[in-house]
């Protein structure tokens, strides 16, 4: 099972690309020109994102550099302990909805700590959290920003609440599948 998944995770991307190209060839589509035609849109889309991403990244960067993130971790700690979330994992869980690169950096940081390798409880829990949710704030900014939506309604609330559910879900998942680590 382990090796099947391992192979699948490296094969899936190339296979998807090959599948698309073969399907295009079977339907006799001009592959190269169609690709170039579609890829053209990539530049404009990315450039349109710059102001949104800059705005959010600056705010997050200020928040982290000031030490405010560390303060919140201290507040959240008792609640986290109740859910069996080690305090080293808390900043990652908090940063996850805000910054993908940031939480990935914290994940690797955790892996390097002597008592928390990737196979430890904290390591597996943090891996699961990183893998099972996406950067809510970034997705909302980018998706809505790309079409000029300014009134988000309940989207952000639902996004953040389901992040919380994923964090709790990660604990449940590790507890279910690896009870020995608890």
């Amino acid at each position, binding site marked *: 099972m382990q090796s099947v998944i391992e192979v699948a995770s490296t094969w899936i991307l190339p296979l*998807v690309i090959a*599948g698309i190209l073969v399907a295009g060839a079977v339907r006799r589509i001009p592959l190269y020109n169609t690709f170039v035609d579609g890829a053209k849109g990539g530049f404009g889309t990315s450039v349109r994102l710059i102001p949104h991403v800059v705005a959010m990244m600056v705010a997050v960067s200020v928040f982290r*550099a000031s030490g*405010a993130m560390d303060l919140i971790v201290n507040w959240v700690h008792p609640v986290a302990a109740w859910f069996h979330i080690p305090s080293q994992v808390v900043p990652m869980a908090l940063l996850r909805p805000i910054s993908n690169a940031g939480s990935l950096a914290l994940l690797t940081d955790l*892996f390097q700590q002597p008592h928390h390798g990737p196979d430890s409880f904290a390591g597996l829990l943090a891996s699961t959290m990183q893998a099972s949710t*996406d*950067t809510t704030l970034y997705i*909302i900014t980018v998706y809505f920003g790309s079409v000029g939506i300014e009134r988000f309604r309940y989207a952000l609330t639902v996004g953040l609440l389901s992040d919380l*559910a994923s964090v709790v879900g990660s604990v449940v998942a590790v507890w279910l599948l690896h009870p020995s680590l608890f």
Partner: protein
Amino acid sequence: MIDFIWLLLFLGGIGTAMVTGHMDKIAQAILDGAKHGVELAFALIAIIALWMGLMQIAERAGMVRWLSRLLRPVGRWLYPSVPPDSPAMGAILANMSANLLGIGNAATPLGLQAMKELQAINPIKDRASDAMCTLLAVNTASITIIPTTVIAVRLQYGSQHPTEVVGTTIVATVIGTGVAIVLDRLFRKLSKRKEAS
């Protein structure tokens, strides 16, 4: 809401810096944040261009239509306000398929495409429609089957069982996505009631 969070992050940060004496780091943090923002956006050009190119081929080959047909019942249930034959539904279902396959790189441009199509049928242009909120709920919870990046990082840091995370991710993501869908339904109903009264 976004105004509030943005302001909170700034003022919370600057306020904390005042108290803790980290003010010297703030100016640098502002510049670093802006720089990372631009770098991220530029890094995205490569990925978005690649997948938009491939997806253009997939679309002309009729693959998106084929996938849409497969996932249509799910789409109709999740997005009752989107006409089942519209290009918006096609893009939504393609985005969903990419998320399911764990190709997050492909999911983003497809999601943006879906957003564009949804905006075309959105009666109030600066306000998110029901379907847009659902699209975000599904994407932020992002059902993932094979978390490629995390497996790679685990391997890099000497994990004995790098793929152990696959099983736990599937369980966690099913819980997260389930909650997201339920909450989306709930809030949709609540907002309808508020508008009606």
